C-alpha cells in the first residue's frame, strides 16, 4: 500500500514537472515565425515513417547506425513493459499481463530482454566512442563542457535502465523457482532465465524480493528522470524527430526560398508595380534573421531536435578544412539563444522590455523583447560567411535538420539590413548590378562565338 501511494505521488509530481518543461519548449518554438507548409502531406508522412520511425538515414554510417538501432528498438519496445509497470504500481498487482497473454507475454518480455542486452552493449560502445576512441566529431570545440557531460549522462541513464530490468526480471525468475507467493509463473525469459540464477541463485527470499523491488523502482524512476531530463538536454530527438521529419522541407535542396517581402520592393524599383501610397514608411523594414524571432518555427524545432551527433559538421567542407563554421554549433547556438530568451520571458524580466515599449505594467513578451543581444552574439560572421551552401550538412542529418536555411537568413540580415559582409563580394555585386555579369568585363558577352 505504501508502495502504491508512493508510486502515484512520484508519478504525479514527475509528470506535472515534465508537463511544465515541455510547455516551455512549445512556447520557445512559438517565438519563431509561423510557416505555411508546401507540398504533399503523403510525402511528409513518408518522411516520418522512413526517416524517423525507420531510421533510414542513420544507416548511412552503418556501424553507429546499427548500434543506435539497438538502443532505439529497445527503447520502443520497453514501452510495453512500462505500461505493465504503471498497472502494477497503481493497483499493487504483479505482472497481470502474464496470465492474460500467456506465451505471447513470455515472447514479448524475452524480446525486450534481448534488445536490452544489445542496447547495453551499444551504450558501452557509444561511451567508448565518446570517451576513449575520441571520434573526431565528438571532440570539436562546441562539444566541450556541458555537451560532453550531457551526452555521457544520457548513456549512463540508459545503462541503469537496463540494469534495472535485469535486476527485476532476474530476481523474479529465482523467486518463481522458489515458489514464492506473489511471484507467479511467467514462462522462462530469454536472458533473465539464466542470468537471474547465475547472479542471484542461493540468496534468501527476502534479499531477492528486495532486489526485485529495487530493480523495478530503479527502472521506473530512471524513466521518470529521463522524461524530465530530456527537456534540458540534447536528447529531445527521441520525441521531436517525428514532428521534425514531418515539417522538413520537401523542395529540392538547391532551392533557397524566395523572400516575398523583397519581391514587392524590387517590382516597384523596376517599375513593374506602383508603390502603395498608404504604405507606412516611418519604420525602416528589417530583412533576414537577426534573432530567433526572425527565424521560422521549423528552424527552432530543428534546433530542439538536434542531438548533437555532429554528422553535419563531419561532412561540412568548411569545417573539414579547419574553418570555424560548424553546422552543429549553429543549431546549438539557436537553441541556447531560444532558451535564454524563454527564461527571461518566463521570469517576466521587465528590464528587457524594449525602451520605446516600456510602460507601467507592461509584460515582457516576444513582441517587446530587447536584451541588447542577438543570435550574432552566439554566431560570428566568420562562421556564416564560410558556408559554401553545398548542402552536405542537410544531407547528413539523420532527422532532416536544415542548418543552411538559418545561415542564409543570417547572411540576409547582414547584407540587407546592415549592408555588411565580406568586402570581396562588393565587386561581384557591382558587376551584377551594372554589367549583368559576376565580373566587370569590357568585352561583349557573346564574344566567344566569334572564333568558333
Amino acid at each position, binding site marked *: 500500500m505504501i508502495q502504491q501511494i508512493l508510486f502515484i505521488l512520484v508519478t504525479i509530481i514527475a509528470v506535472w514537472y515534465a508537463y511544465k518543461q515541455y510547455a516551455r519548449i512549445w512556447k520557445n518554438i512559438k517565438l519563431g515565425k509561423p510557416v505555411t507548409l508546401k507540398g504533399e502531406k503523403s510525402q511528409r508522412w513518408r518522411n516520418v515513417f522512413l526517416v524517423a520511425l525507420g531510421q533510414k538515414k542513420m544507416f548511412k554510417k552503418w556501424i553507429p547506425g546499427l548500434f543506435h538501432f539497438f538502443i532505439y528498438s529497445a527503447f520502443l519496445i520497453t514501452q510495453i513493459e512500462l505500461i505493465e509497470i504503471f498497472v502494477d504500481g497503481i493497483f499493487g498487482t504483479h505482472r497481470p499481463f502474464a496470465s492474460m497473454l500467456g506465451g505471447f507475454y513470455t515472447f514479448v518480455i524475452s524480446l525486450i530482454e534481448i534488445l536490452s542486452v544489445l542496447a547495453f552493449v551499444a551504450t558501452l560502445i557509444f561511451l567508448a566512442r565518446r570517451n576513449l576512441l575520441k571520434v573526431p566529431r565528438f571532440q570539436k570545440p562546441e562539444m566541450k563542457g556541458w555537451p560532453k557531460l550531457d551526452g555521457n549522462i544520457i548513456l549512463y541513464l540508459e545503462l541503469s535502465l537496463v540494469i534495472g530490468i535485469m535486476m527485476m526480471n532476474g530476481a523474479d525468475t529465482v523467486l518463481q523457482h522458489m515458489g514464492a507467493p506473489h511471484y507467479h509463473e511467467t514462462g522462462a525469459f530469454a536472458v533473465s532465465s539464466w542470468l537471474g540464477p547465475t547472479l542471484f541463485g542461493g540468496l534468501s527470499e527476502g534479499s531477492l524480493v528486495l532486489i526485485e523491488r529495487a530493480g523495478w523502482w530503479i527502472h521506473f524512476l530512471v524513466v521518470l528522470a529521463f522524461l524530465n531530463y530530456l527537456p534540458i538536454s540534447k536528447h529531445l530527438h527521441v520525441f521531436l524527430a517525428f514532428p521534425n521529419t514531418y515539417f522538413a522541407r520537401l*523542395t*529540392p*535542396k*538547391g*532551392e*533557397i526560398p*524566395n*523572400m*516575398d517581402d*523583397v*519581391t514587392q*520592393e*524590387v*517590382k516597384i524599383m*523596376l517599375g*513593374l508595380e506602383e508603390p502603395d501610397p498608404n504604405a507606412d514608411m516611418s519604420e525602416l523594414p528589417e*530583412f533576414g534573421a537577426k534573432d530567433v524571432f526572425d527565424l521560422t518555427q521549423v528552424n527552432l524545432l530543428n534546433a530542439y531536435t538536434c542531438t548533437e551527433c555532429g554528422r553535419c559538421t563531419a561532412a561540412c*567542407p*568548411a569545417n*573539414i*578544412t*579547419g*574553418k*570555424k*563554421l560548424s553546422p552543429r554549433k549553429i543549431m546549438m547556438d539557436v537553441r541556447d539563444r531560444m532558451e535564454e530568451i524563454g527564461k527571461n520571458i518566463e521570469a517576466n524580466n521587465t528590464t528587457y522590455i524594449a525602451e520605446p515599449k516600456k510602460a507601467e505594467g507592461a509584460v515582457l513578451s516576444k513582441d517587446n523583447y530587447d536584451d541588447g543581444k542577438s543570435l550574432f552574439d552566439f554566431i560570428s560572421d*566568420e562562421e556564416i*560567411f564560410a558556408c*559554401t*551552401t*553545398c*548542402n*552536405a550538412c*542537410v*544531407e547528413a542529418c539523420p532527422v532532416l535538420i536544415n542548418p543552411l536555411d538559418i545561415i*542564409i537568413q543570417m*547572411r*540576409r*540580415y547582414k*547584407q*540587407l539590413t546592415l549592408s555588411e*559582409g565580406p568586402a*570581396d*563580394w562588393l*565587386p*561581384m*555585386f557591382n558587376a*551584377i*548590378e551594372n554589367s*549583368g*555579369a*559576376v*565580373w566587370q*568585363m569590357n568585352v*561583349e*558577352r*557573346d*564574344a*566567344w*562565338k566569334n572564333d*568558333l
Partner: protein
Amino acid sequence: MAELAAQGKSPEILFWVGCAGSYDARAIKVTKAFAKILNAANIDFAILGQEERCTGDPARRAGNEFLFQMSAMMNIETINQYKFKRIVTTCPHCYNTFKNEYPALGGDFKVIHHSEYLQELIADGKIRITDEGEIKGKKLTYHDSCYIGRGNDIYEAPREVLNALNNDIIEMKRCKSDGLCCGAGGAQMFKEDEPGNKRINTERAEEAIHTGAEVIAANCPFCITMLEDGIKEKDAQEKVTVLDLAEIIADRI
C-alpha cells in the same frame, strides 16, 4: 535569339551560356565544346547574347536578395519575349536558379542541365561516340557538383554519359550524395577563405588525385576552376586533367 525572333523563328533550345561560360577563358572552352556537340547533333539552338544576365545565384547565396531578384526579374522579362522548347545550360548554378527559384518570381521555364542533355543525346542516338580521341583509354573519375548532385539529386545521368565512353571510371570515396564540395559555391568563388588549415579545393583535388584517375570529369565551370587550382597546388597537372563532360564528349565525336 533576337535575330531568330525577328525572322519569326523559334529554336528548339535556348543555350544559356552563363557568366563563366561567356567570360572565363577556361569555361569558354566548355561553351565551345558544347556548341560543337549541339551542331554535330543538328540541334536547332540559339543564345541570348547581349541580353543574357547573371541569374543572380551568387548574390542570393551571399544574402543579397535584392540584387538576386532584380537580376532574376530582368532575365525572366527577357526570356518571356521568346519562344523555344527548353533552356539548356552548362552551369549547375544557373540550372538550379531556373529550375527551383525562378518559378516563385513568375519564370516558368523548362530547363535541363547539359549533363542530362548529353545523356539524352547519346540515348537518342543523336551523337555517336567514336573510338578515337585523346581521352580514349584514360582512367576517369567524376566529381559531383553540389548543385547538380545534392541540390537536385542528379547523380546517374552524368555517370551514364561517362559510361558511354567505355573508359575505366573510379569513384572517389566521397561521391554522389556524400560528394565533397569544390569550395566555390555559396559565392565563395568571389571571396577569400575564412581562416582555416587548408583550402577546400586542395582537399578535393587530393582526393581526386588519390584515385589515380588521369581525367577528372566535372560539370560546373566553378568546380573546374577550383579543381584545377588544387591540382596545380599539388603540382599534379602533368598527371591529371580536369575536363567538363562536354569537352570529354566533344573529344569523342
